């Protein structure tokens, strides 16, 4: 007891001493982050509530017309809402497929020798070294070979390509949690009369929930906001949320509506991460 409190004290002394010495290193970082993150956020909000146009250097009129256009016009009915629904539908399916395949893979990885575990981990992360755009283009070629590269199949093709791209992000966090799981707890459940299935459903699955939530977020959010997959696979005919933002960054007045879309996307992201932090307070399964 004495020992540990002495340690804590010691640590604190070290910290306060250092506080005077190296904290100044932080100042340039704050300036940097303010410049590239906080200021653009301000510009984003400003653009979303005005009709200001950079290229024309027009007058500033505060208005909610951008929001009205997105949520409450014929554009909203014909483009925006169908697009949001389609995005959620695609991301949902992608996430479910990744989870249904990814969880058993992560579970299997914990059962094998550490040497092979490391190898599987490596082979899951190596695809990151292959250019993502070229991987998407290659999927298109594969669909051409399979004879499914036309209208009716575009949505399915997009889902397959996304599953391929985001699957590692589902497997890795689940594996991280499962690997840390104390095997004695599972043994205890057997001793207490659980069958293998019961033990899995009542012990392993609840304990790996943190990894599942992280994996779901890390698959769901990228598929919700990606534009390059649908753009390449469907020749820009199937529009998702990301495509709406992408389309807005050319042309005049586009930035205002684009800002509204970006704010909506940020809201989705924040909600997603609040969900993760509810389950996984330390945030250790992220990244």
């Amino acid at each position: 007891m004495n020992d540990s409190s002495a340690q804590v004290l010691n640590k604190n002394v070290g910290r306060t001493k250092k506080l005077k010495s190296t904290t100044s290193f932080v100042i340039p970082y704050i300036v940097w982050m303010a410049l590239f993150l906080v200021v653009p956020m301000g510009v984003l909000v400003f653009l979303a509530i005005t009709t200001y146009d950079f290229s024309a250097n027009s007058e500033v009129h505060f208005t909610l017309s951008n929001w009205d256009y997105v949520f409450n016009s014929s554009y909203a009915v014909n483009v925006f809402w169908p697009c949001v629904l389609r995005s959620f539908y695609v991301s949902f399916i992608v996430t479910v497929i990744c989870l249904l395949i990814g969880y058993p893979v992560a579970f299997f990885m914990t059962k094998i020798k550490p040497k092979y575990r490391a190898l599987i981990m490596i082979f899951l992360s190596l695809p990151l070294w292959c250019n993502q755009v070229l991987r998407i283009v290659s999927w298109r070629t594969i669909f051409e070979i399979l004879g499914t590269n036309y209208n009716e199949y575009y949505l399915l093709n997009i889902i397959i390509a996304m599953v391929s791209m985001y699957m590692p992000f589902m497997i890795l966090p689940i594996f991280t949690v499962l690997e840390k799981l104390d095997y004695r707890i599972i043994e205890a459940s057997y001793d207490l009369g659980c069958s293998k299935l019961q033990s899995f459903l009542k012990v392993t699955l609840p304990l790996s929930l943190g990894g599942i939530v992280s994996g779901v977020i890390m698959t769901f959010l990228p598929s919700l906001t990606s534009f390059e997959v649908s753009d390449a696979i469907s020749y820009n005919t199937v529009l998702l949320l990301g495509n709406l933002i992408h389309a807005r960054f050319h042309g005049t007045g586009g930035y205002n509506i684009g800002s509204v879309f970006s704010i909506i996307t940020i809201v989705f992201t924040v909600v997603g991460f609040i969900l993760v932090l509810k389950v996984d307070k330390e945030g250790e399964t992220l990244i």
Partner: protein
Amino acid sequence: MKKKTVMDYISIIFVVLAFVIIYAPIILIFMMSFTSTYSLSEVGEGFTFKWYQSLFTTNYESLNIATKYIANTDSLKAAILNTFFITILSTIISTFLGTMFSIGIHALNKKRRTTLMVLNNMPVVNPDIVTGFLLLLIFVLFQTLFGLERGWFTVLLAHIFFSIPYVVLSVLPRLNQIDPNTYEAARDLGCTRLGAVFKAIIPSITTGIVSGAMFAFTMSIDDFVITMFVSGTEFYNVSTWIDSAMRRGFIPKGVYAYNVIIFLIASAIVLSNNYLQSRKARKFKEAV
């Protein structure tokens, strides 16, 4: 030897399925890089190395860093050089800055540290498309205010921006592990402030710095979305070059060869590193 159960076979099927889905496009990229024709019916026919050769036979006159002519191999070479230029510079700069910032963040009290970590993690959790759009806005603002055109410089700034948070996330856990007194000891022994940082802190966090640099390198070399937003119309890295070529409906096959080379080099480095690590661990075990 344990007997294999039905469950084992099912697990193996799932692993194979996952790897087939993840690796299918990569296998196709390998095949495309070795076949001479563009037509699909002949994928796998006409084995050739000519796309690899085309990457190394340079026509210096047409090699222009500001790539204007898409869809030829020379512009691809320029895009590759651009990619390396940006990736190497941004890795070096962001690793240095990220390490310095981590040391600063580490020395803060808990409340301020948490605030700064929230700020640090924002670019990490933001979708690429939002980060790209935010950076585009600030660069458009710069353009209006100072006349800064978008090009290699804005791309470099953007890459440094999105790399630093990953470096901080790799270095900070290492800093938490070191003895807080080493820095003070170095100061007592006559080091200057910066001297103490470089002689006492940096050497004990090298593994964190290296993994941070690896992160920064991986993120930068493959980046598409953010680069596309901030690069303007005349600067291409490999990703935006492929995108641009794709929109014109013709992708020169040299880029497949380039990707195979990068993929093989990365695999070789990662696998040999893994081998060395496991051998080290085994030797350590034997010694104990």
